[in-house]
């Protein structure tokens, strides 16, 4: 069991001198383990029996990127997975800097649902959002339904279409790969811009909410009813 404890309270670490804050949402079919991934990342705990998430849960966690001496604070929005909660989804990913689209490697349907979410994000989410396609429950490789090669194929296709997607497998149960996902997201975020923009904890003003320096381009998105499956 690998325990990603090293990232706990990194703010006490003396080596960092820069700070950036980003909003991250988790999306994916119900019971794929979204909340479990978050709890592994934030609290380093795991429950076999986790209650279904209703609405949303908010958590924060910071990690440090030693190379760039930067502390990244993630505002994590964990969402309910059921299809109908999609009508709330735009509220979650509005202004998001990163999205974790989670599937369960033992469930083919959850993989296609994760792809649907990516499609939806491409259409609706802020431009420049960092997207990660994450296969959870890698400890259940025996009942695997989604092969890594398929994922690679999908990613390949996506990159030909001009979108780069981070992809990885993890196990919230064992902890394998969880921290790595958040680290690679952190590395893909426009940290320089965020830090350069002088973003700090005080975000009273209207503009600096765009922590990642991502231009939301609110006008870009047509006011469209977001209902229905994409």
């Amino acid at each position, binding site marked *: 069991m690998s325990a990603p404890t090293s990232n706990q309270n990194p703010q006490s670490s003396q080596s960092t001198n820069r700070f950036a804050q980003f909003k991250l949402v988790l999306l994916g079919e119900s*019971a794929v383990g979204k909340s479990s991934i978050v709890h592994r990342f934030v609290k380093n705990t795991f429950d076999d*029996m*986790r209650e279904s998430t*209703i609405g949303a849960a908010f958590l924060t966690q910071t990690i440090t990127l030693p190379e760039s001496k930067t502390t990244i604070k993630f505002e994590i929005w964990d969402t309910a997975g059921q299809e*109908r*909660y999609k009508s709330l989804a735009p509220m979650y990913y509005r202004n998001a800097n990163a999205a974790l689209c989670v599937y369960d490697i033992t469930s083919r349907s959850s993989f296609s649902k994760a792809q649907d979410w990516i499609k939806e994000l491409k259409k609706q989410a802020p431009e420049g959002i960092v997207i990660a396609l994450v296969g959870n429950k890698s400890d259940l490789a025996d009942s695997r339904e989604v092969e890594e090669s398929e994922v690679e194929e999908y990613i390949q296709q996506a990159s030909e279409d001009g979108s780069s997607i981070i992809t990885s497998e993890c196990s919230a149960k064992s902890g394998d790969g969880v921290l790595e996902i958040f680290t690679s997201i952190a590395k893909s975020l426009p940290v320089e811009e965020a830090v350069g923009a002088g973003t700090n904890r005080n975000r009273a003003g209207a503009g600096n909410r765009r922590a990642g320096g991502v231009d939301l381009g609110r006008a870009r998105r047509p006011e469209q009813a977001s*209902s229905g499956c994409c």
Partner: protein
Amino acid sequence: MSFRPLSPPESPTANNSNNHNQSMSRSSESDLSVDTDIIIGHLDPNFGSETRIENPKTPSSHQRNASSYSRNYSLLDFYGLESPSGDRESEPLIDASIMKGLDDLEFKELSHANTIFAKSVVPSPETEASVRENYIQPTVSENIEKILNSPYDRYGFRKSSTLHNITHDHYNEWFSDYSQYALRRKKKWHILMKNNGLHLEQEDSIPTRFPPKSDKVKKLIRQGIPAEWRGSAWFFYAGGHERLNKHIGVYSQIVRDTRDIHNKDTEVIERDLHRTFPDNIYFNSQITSPVNSSSTTLATDTSAAPPETPMIKSLRRVLTAFAHYQPQIGYCQSLNFLAGLLLLFMEEERAFWMLVILTERIIPKVHSANLEGVHTDQGVLMLCIKEYIPQLWAILGKNFEGEALSEDKILTRLPPVTLVTSSWFMSLFVGILPIETTLRVWDILWYESSKTIFRFSLTICKMCLENPDFQASRNNNKGGAEMDQIELFQFLQNFPKTILDPNLLVDNCFKKIGGYGFGSLSQDEINKCREFVSKQRAKLDHKKNNNIAAEMTDEERRTLISSSDGTFADDQSIHDVYGFHRSIMSGVIWNKSISNKMKRSFVKRKTSR
């Protein structure tokens, strides 16, 4: 008033030719006794007047259309028109017709479900050893001792459950006080019952009839219903008996119709069954066994799924039947918690009808496919916060960019905080407040209806605002004025879990002195606000369509424009809804304070045009 519940829609004896001969004979007997009870109940001339309480079914704009099963649900659904089905304790709780076509195993489960609540029925020997007479033990001193020594609370939750948010020792510390309070309340209830001529045969019998609504009863309800009476009292005051009597055999029929059904809803239900109260012994058989969670696999790994408890089977039947009965809703996550909590307190047929009453009458459309009721109620809550807790609105009433939301924007683009508060309405505080506090809110909810949710939401918000930690956190924040919204959300998300003392919450809610006096927020005000918000949102949809459908014909456009006045939330339409100009709501005086404010602000805007 003639009401004839004597012939159930489906006679249980009509068609069951060959199956289950022995089983059936037993269930037919018990079925007979139900009918007898109903006859007694309905011929009792005193009963109707005694239970006539208040005009219960306020027609609401949210009311969904009747589904095929609920067609005979009529405007006669008044509290006084039908009676509870007698007060026999041994009333069989599942109609015998349910047994038709079920195999023996299922029959045993169902008959077991009957025996759980029918105290005078001795559980048959073939039922599982773990079967208990009743999930909720009576509030008596010796049971309190037992609970103090057990790792589980009186509802079967682990004391260290997330629903309590405290350690085992803390639980006991709290419970040893609170249980004394509960004992004193129960004495008061006994006196109330006696004064109303509702004699209880034994100290620990559970009444099926309760006194008609009155200030006295309301006061006691707010102080808490004895835990083991809850199911019966909720069902009584929510109008469960009349609903059930009008639909005799319907639940059984649906269960039969849906037993082999597989669809999108059942798929999600299956995923949620084991994620419903996993730290309750009635839902999760594993937690009592020494081989604990460490050796189990993920809940969704069906290959190694833990054995199902009877409760999980009931939950599956109720949720599946409900999804079938209310196709506009189907299954919505959070219904699992509502049904689950109901099932701890009543048998499944009743839990089913309570779910129907809840989603039709109390929180309409909240669980519907587009969650429109969630948006509506969040809009109402935001209006209420703005009105009653302006200091909090100053913090919450902003969009993500930190811009203050203007009056007319609130309803079209809900503030981000509603991402937290919407779950309060979907799960009715289950998992939000500690369990005993939740149950105390439910006591009041079933008696006083939906205003209760708003009153307590406001109370929680105000307690949150006044909390020293919250204040400190705000002051520590640079600039002081702005608290990082996510910090605020986290606080608002975590703070309710700490309200361990139900009396603190209830007193804060209702007390005029030393509390917030939210008891003055009336149901009428809520109804009108809901109507207002949903109309505004409907207009928003029109506008959206207007923007999108550029290819529309002139005819269509004219229709659309005439239906929405062309613009969204224009002054005229707001006046319409508030009744200032065209008095749509003539004769109704409501929400003076909000309406006056709205009036002022719109007059101002008009003149400045």
